[in-house]
């Protein structure tokens, strides 16, 4: 029989970079861009759910993602806060959209013509604000958990590209999809 000794789990350098950058974001949250971090207080006292939407999760195994988030919160917010987190959800923007987690999407009129001059400028502005190009680089996805966040992004996009018409669309999952 071959002899095999398994080393303890160690994060790759890329995974360590994710942790470092998440810690930086938690310490000094940016107003736009990714990661998009949402922490929700839920029903019972002192319980939190943490959602970290970040395209850089792509290629990172699911169990490692969650541990990175717990370690990030531990570093920045301490043990008591981290122990109050009962759920960590880590998703790229397309993964989150597919789960129905980021229902509010910001779009511009004529988004299906990204090759036009105004389309290019709109897409650049959206990427600056954190839009995902994972699914299709020609059609950046700028999505939010709340309508309020989406409206704030629209205000900023109107400042960056005032000649475009900006709006918010909502994706609603039908309960019947579950009940087939």
């Amino acid at each position, binding site marked *: 029989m071959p002899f095999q000794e398994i080393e303890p789990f160690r994060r790759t350098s890329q995974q360590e970079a994710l942790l470092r950058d998440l810690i930086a974001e938690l310490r000094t949250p940016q107003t736009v861009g990714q990661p998009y971090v949402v922490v929700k207080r*839920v029903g019972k006292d002192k319980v939190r759910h943490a959602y970290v939407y970040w395209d850089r999760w792509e290629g990172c195994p699911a169990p490692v993602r969650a541990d990175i988030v717990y370690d990030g919160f531990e570093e920045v917010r301490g043990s008591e806060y981290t122990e109050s987190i009962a759920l960590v959800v880590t998703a790229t923007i397309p993964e989150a959209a597919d*789960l129905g987690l980021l229902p509010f999407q910001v779009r511009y009129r004529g988004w299906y013509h990204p090759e036009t001059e105004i389309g290019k400028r709109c897409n650049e502005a959206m990427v600056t604000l954190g839009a995902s190009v994972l699914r299709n680089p020609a059609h950046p996805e700028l999505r939010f958990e709340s309508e309020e966040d989406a409206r704030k992004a629209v205000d900023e996009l109107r400042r960056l590209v005032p000649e475009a018409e900006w709006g918010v669309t909502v994706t609603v*999952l039908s309960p019947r999809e579950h009940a087939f």
Partner: protein
Amino acid sequence: MPKPLPERFAAECIGEFRLSALMRREEGEVLAAAGHGTGAIYLWGYAVEMTLKAAYFNLLGLGNLDSIRLSDLRTALGNSPASTASTLGMTPSGSLHDLAGWGQLIILYRRKYGPSYLSGGFERDLRRLSGYAGNLWSETIRYHKNKAHRYEVDGMRRVTAWMLDRSSEL
């Protein structure tokens, strides 16, 4: 005009799941007593499903009346690298009616984040019984004319009773 039944539904939440599970269990008993074993199993499967879902969201700290959305169910057991099932190392089936999957999700969640069960026997029973129910029940039963065997009706009745009687411990 009175509102139709679906418009009278309350928001989906732990409290609603638990009460509906009790009702489906009772309705299943009526069907079983009348000789409609397949119908009984069909309803009991939902009673088990709602009990397991309620237990999982209770572990996550949701209150009895906190709304549970379809995206929450998908985030729990969806076939996605971002689902909690994937995070805990499961390979989710993708079906949100997967009884064995919900049982396994609860077990793995408790193992990783606690609180752990007081006895290992309880965890084994939960895995065994949710697996049994998952093998016997499918939401597609309604599409088929098959009659359940007596031992299947008895087995599903016992699983349902076990789950509902211990719903607060799951």
